[in-house]
Protein backbone atom coordinates (compact mmCIF):
# COMPACT_ATOMS: atom_id res chain seq x y z
CA UNK A 1 0.00 0.00 0.00
CA UNK A 2 1.37 3.37 -0.98
CA UNK A 3 1.69 6.04 1.75
CA UNK A 4 -0.76 8.89 2.04
CA UNK A 5 0.61 12.01 0.32
CA UNK A 6 1.37 14.83 2.76
CA UNK A 7 2.15 18.47 2.07
CA UNK A 8 5.84 17.55 2.24
CA UNK A 9 5.27 15.12 -0.64
CA UNK A 10 3.94 17.98 -2.76
CA UNK A 11 6.86 20.19 -1.84
CA UNK A 12 9.33 17.41 -2.69
CA UNK A 13 7.75 16.70 -6.09
CA UNK A 14 7.57 20.42 -6.83
CA UNK A 15 11.24 20.87 -5.85
CA UNK A 16 12.26 18.07 -8.23
CA UNK A 17 10.18 19.62 -11.02
CA UNK A 18 11.62 23.07 -10.36
CA UNK A 19 15.17 21.69 -10.43
CA UNK A 20 14.42 19.82 -13.67
CA UNK A 21 13.00 22.94 -15.29
CA UNK A 22 15.88 25.13 -14.11
CA UNK A 23 18.40 22.55 -15.31
CA UNK A 24 16.70 22.35 -18.71
CA UNK A 25 16.64 26.13 -18.93
CA UNK A 26 20.35 26.34 -18.15
CA UNK A 27 21.61 23.44 -20.24
CA UNK A 28 19.46 23.34 -23.37
CA UNK A 29 19.88 25.87 -26.17
CA UNK A 30 16.78 25.54 -28.38
CA UNK A 31 13.85 27.95 -27.86
CA UNK A 32 11.32 25.11 -27.82
CA UNK A 33 13.12 23.11 -25.15
CA UNK A 34 13.59 26.21 -23.04
CA UNK A 35 9.88 27.00 -23.34
CA UNK A 36 9.04 23.45 -22.28
CA UNK A 37 11.47 23.75 -19.34
CA UNK A 38 9.59 26.89 -18.28
CA UNK A 39 6.36 24.89 -18.52
CA UNK A 40 7.84 22.26 -16.20
CA UNK A 41 8.70 25.00 -13.71
CA UNK A 42 5.17 26.43 -13.84
CA UNK A 43 3.85 22.88 -13.25
CA UNK A 44 5.82 22.88 -9.99
CA UNK A 45 4.20 26.17 -8.98
CA UNK A 46 0.69 24.90 -9.82
CA UNK A 47 1.28 21.72 -7.81
CA UNK A 48 2.37 23.70 -4.75
CA UNK A 49 -0.63 26.05 -5.00
CA UNK A 50 -3.06 23.13 -5.37
CA UNK A 51 -1.42 21.45 -2.34
CA UNK A 52 -1.70 24.64 -0.28
CA UNK A 53 -5.42 24.83 -1.05
CA UNK A 54 -5.91 21.20 -0.15
CA UNK A 55 -3.92 21.07 3.09
CA UNK A 56 -4.57 24.56 4.47
CA UNK A 57 -8.25 24.71 3.55
CA UNK A 58 -8.02 27.87 1.45
CA UNK A 59 -9.42 28.49 -2.03
CA UNK A 60 -7.42 31.50 -3.17
CA UNK A 61 -4.13 29.83 -4.11
CA UNK A 62 -5.69 28.20 -7.17
CA UNK A 63 -6.47 31.68 -8.56
CA UNK A 64 -2.77 32.56 -8.27
CA UNK A 65 -2.00 29.24 -9.97
CA UNK A 66 -4.26 30.22 -12.88
CA UNK A 67 -2.34 33.50 -13.22
CA UNK A 68 0.97 31.58 -13.23
CA UNK A 69 -0.39 29.44 -16.07
CA UNK A 70 -1.48 32.55 -17.96
CA UNK A 71 2.00 34.02 -17.54
CA UNK A 72 3.55 30.89 -19.08
CA UNK A 73 1.09 31.13 -21.97
CA UNK A 74 2.01 34.74 -22.67
CA UNK A 75 5.73 33.86 -22.53
CA UNK A 76 5.15 31.14 -25.11
CA UNK A 77 3.26 33.58 -27.32
CA UNK A 78 6.12 36.09 -27.07
CA UNK A 79 8.68 33.45 -28.06
CA UNK A 80 6.61 32.39 -31.07
CA UNK A 81 6.23 36.04 -32.11
CA UNK A 82 10.01 36.52 -31.94
CA UNK A 83 10.61 33.32 -33.94
CA UNK A 84 8.04 34.43 -36.52
CA UNK A 85 9.64 37.83 -36.80
CA UNK A 86 13.13 36.36 -37.17
CA UNK A 87 11.94 33.87 -39.76
CA UNK A 88 10.16 36.56 -41.79
CA UNK A 89 13.21 38.85 -41.68
CA UNK A 90 15.50 36.02 -42.79
CA UNK A 91 13.21 35.30 -45.72
CA UNK A 92 12.92 38.96 -46.73
CA UNK A 93 16.69 39.51 -46.69
CA UNK A 94 17.40 36.52 -48.88
Amino acid at each position, binding site marked *: *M*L*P*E*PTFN*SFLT*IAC*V*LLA*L*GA*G*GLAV*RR*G*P*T*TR*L*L*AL*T*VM*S*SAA*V*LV*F*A*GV*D*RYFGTASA*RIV*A*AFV*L*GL*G*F*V*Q*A*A*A*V*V*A*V*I*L*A*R*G*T*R*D*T*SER
Partner: protein
Amino acid sequence: MNHTLFWILAGTLLAASVLTVTLRRAASAVASALVATMALAGACVLLDAPWLGATVVVIQGSTVLIAGLAAWFARAPGAAIEPMSWRDIAWGSVLTTALVIELAWMLQRLTPAPFAPVPDDVGWTAGMHTGIVLVPLPALITLLLGVAGVKASRKDL
Protein backbone atom coordinates in the same frame (compact mmCIF):
# COMPACT_ATOMS: atom_id res chain seq x y z
CA MET B 1 -8.34 10.94 -2.32
CA ASN B 2 -7.13 7.78 -3.99
CA HIS B 3 -3.51 7.51 -2.83
CA THR B 4 -2.45 4.96 -5.42
CA LEU B 5 -3.84 7.06 -8.27
CA PHE B 6 -2.12 10.15 -6.90
CA TRP B 7 1.29 8.45 -6.77
CA ILE B 8 0.79 7.04 -10.28
CA LEU B 9 0.01 10.55 -11.56
CA ALA B 10 2.94 12.05 -9.63
CA GLY B 11 5.30 9.41 -11.07
CA THR B 12 3.95 10.06 -14.57
CA LEU B 13 4.40 13.81 -14.06
CA LEU B 14 8.02 13.39 -12.95
CA ALA B 15 8.92 10.86 -15.67
CA ALA B 16 7.29 12.92 -18.43
CA SER B 17 9.03 16.08 -17.15
CA VAL B 18 12.41 14.32 -17.24
CA LEU B 19 11.70 13.22 -20.83
CA THR B 20 10.54 16.73 -21.76
CA VAL B 21 13.84 18.23 -20.68
CA THR B 22 16.14 15.47 -21.94
CA LEU B 23 14.65 14.38 -25.30
CA ARG B 24 16.39 15.94 -28.29
CA ARG B 25 13.60 15.48 -30.84
CA ALA B 26 11.22 18.44 -30.51
CA ALA B 27 8.06 16.48 -31.38
CA SER B 28 8.83 13.86 -28.70
CA ALA B 29 9.56 16.58 -26.13
CA VAL B 30 6.23 18.26 -26.92
CA ALA B 31 4.37 14.91 -26.60
CA SER B 32 6.06 14.30 -23.22
CA ALA B 33 5.09 17.79 -22.09
CA LEU B 34 1.47 17.07 -23.05
CA VAL B 35 1.57 13.89 -20.93
CA ALA B 36 3.04 15.88 -18.02
CA THR B 37 0.28 18.48 -18.42
CA MET B 38 -2.44 15.85 -18.28
CA ALA B 39 -0.84 14.20 -15.24
CA LEU B 40 -0.73 17.58 -13.49
CA ALA B 41 -4.37 18.20 -14.37
CA GLY B 42 -5.31 14.78 -12.98
CA ALA B 43 -3.43 15.55 -9.75
CA CYS B 44 -5.33 18.84 -9.47
CA VAL B 45 -8.65 17.02 -9.88
CA LEU B 46 -7.61 14.53 -7.18
CA LEU B 47 -6.82 17.49 -4.90
CA ASP B 48 -10.44 18.69 -5.17
CA ALA B 49 -9.55 21.48 -7.61
CA PRO B 50 -11.28 20.33 -10.82
CA TRP B 51 -11.50 23.87 -12.22
CA LEU B 52 -7.77 24.34 -11.78
CA GLY B 53 -7.34 21.01 -13.59
CA ALA B 54 -9.48 22.29 -16.47
CA THR B 55 -7.44 25.52 -16.52
CA VAL B 56 -4.24 23.47 -16.67
CA VAL B 57 -5.56 21.47 -19.63
CA VAL B 58 -6.70 24.55 -21.54
CA ILE B 59 -3.90 27.05 -20.81
CA GLN B 60 -0.86 24.85 -20.22
CA GLY B 61 -1.95 22.51 -23.03
CA SER B 62 -2.12 25.54 -25.33
CA THR B 63 1.31 26.67 -24.13
CA VAL B 64 2.80 23.28 -25.01
CA LEU B 65 1.11 23.30 -28.40
CA ILE B 66 2.44 26.82 -29.01
CA ALA B 67 5.92 25.51 -28.13
CA GLY B 68 5.37 22.84 -30.80
CA LEU B 69 4.39 25.61 -33.19
CA ALA B 70 7.64 27.42 -32.30
CA ALA B 71 9.59 24.25 -33.13
CA TRP B 72 7.78 24.06 -36.46
CA PHE B 73 8.63 27.67 -37.35
CA ALA B 74 12.21 27.38 -36.09
CA ARG B 75 13.06 24.35 -38.22
CA ALA B 76 15.76 24.73 -40.85
CA PRO B 77 14.40 26.17 -44.09
CA GLY B 78 13.79 23.48 -46.65
CA ALA B 79 14.30 20.69 -44.12
CA ALA B 80 12.49 17.48 -45.00
CA ILE B 81 9.64 16.47 -42.72
CA GLU B 82 10.57 13.31 -40.87
CA PRO B 83 8.22 10.47 -41.86
CA MET B 84 6.21 8.84 -39.07
CA SER B 85 7.31 5.33 -38.14
CA TRP B 86 5.04 2.50 -36.93
CA ARG B 87 6.56 2.95 -33.48
CA ASP B 88 5.48 6.62 -33.47
CA ILE B 89 1.95 5.64 -34.55
CA ALA B 90 1.72 2.97 -31.82
CA TRP B 91 2.95 5.36 -29.10
CA GLY B 92 0.64 8.09 -30.39
CA SER B 93 -2.37 5.76 -30.28
CA VAL B 94 -1.60 4.63 -26.72
CA LEU B 95 -1.08 8.22 -25.52
CA THR B 96 -4.20 9.52 -27.25
CA THR B 97 -6.33 6.73 -25.75
CA ALA B 98 -4.91 7.43 -22.27
CA LEU B 99 -5.50 11.18 -22.64
CA VAL B 100 -9.09 10.69 -23.82
CA ILE B 101 -9.80 8.35 -20.88
CA GLU B 102 -8.31 10.86 -18.45
CA LEU B 103 -10.27 13.75 -19.99
CA ALA B 104 -13.51 11.75 -19.62
CA TRP B 105 -12.58 10.96 -16.01
CA MET B 106 -11.92 14.65 -15.34
CA LEU B 107 -15.14 15.80 -17.00
CA GLN B 108 -17.09 13.42 -14.75
CA ARG B 109 -15.66 15.23 -11.73
CA LEU B 110 -16.34 18.78 -12.90
CA THR B 111 -18.83 20.32 -10.54
CA PRO B 112 -20.93 23.34 -11.53
CA ALA B 113 -18.90 26.53 -11.84
CA PRO B 114 -18.01 27.99 -8.44
CA PHE B 115 -19.07 31.50 -9.45
CA ALA B 116 -21.97 33.34 -7.90
CA PRO B 117 -25.01 33.33 -10.20
CA VAL B 118 -25.51 36.62 -12.03
CA PRO B 119 -28.97 38.14 -11.55
CA ASP B 120 -30.85 38.77 -14.78
CA ASP B 121 -31.63 42.42 -14.03
CA VAL B 122 -27.98 43.44 -13.48
CA GLY B 123 -25.97 44.74 -16.39
CA TRP B 124 -22.22 44.89 -16.86
CA THR B 125 -20.72 45.88 -13.49
CA ALA B 126 -17.12 46.10 -12.33
CA GLY B 127 -16.09 42.81 -10.75
CA MET B 128 -18.70 40.80 -12.61
CA HIS B 129 -18.15 38.53 -15.58
CA THR B 130 -14.49 38.37 -14.59
CA GLY B 131 -14.21 34.86 -15.98
CA ILE B 132 -15.58 35.97 -19.33
CA VAL B 133 -12.90 38.66 -19.53
CA LEU B 134 -10.03 36.53 -18.21
CA VAL B 135 -10.50 33.57 -20.51
CA PRO B 136 -10.07 35.32 -23.88
CA LEU B 137 -7.41 37.72 -22.52
CA PRO B 138 -4.42 35.40 -23.19
CA ALA B 139 -5.79 34.77 -26.69
CA LEU B 140 -6.00 38.52 -27.34
CA ILE B 141 -2.45 39.07 -26.00
CA THR B 142 -1.21 36.23 -28.22
CA LEU B 143 -2.86 37.81 -31.25
CA LEU B 144 -1.40 41.23 -30.48
CA LEU B 145 2.08 39.78 -29.90
CA GLY B 146 1.88 37.84 -33.15
CA VAL B 147 0.84 40.95 -35.08
CA ALA B 148 3.61 42.95 -33.36
CA GLY B 149 6.16 40.27 -34.30
CA VAL B 150 5.13 40.27 -37.95
CA LYS B 151 5.05 44.09 -38.06
CA ALA B 152 8.48 44.35 -36.43
CA SER B 153 9.93 42.01 -39.03
CA ARG B 154 9.11 44.38 -41.87
CA LYS B 155 11.90 46.66 -42.94
CA ASP B 156 9.73 49.70 -43.65
CA LEU B 157 8.82 50.09 -39.98
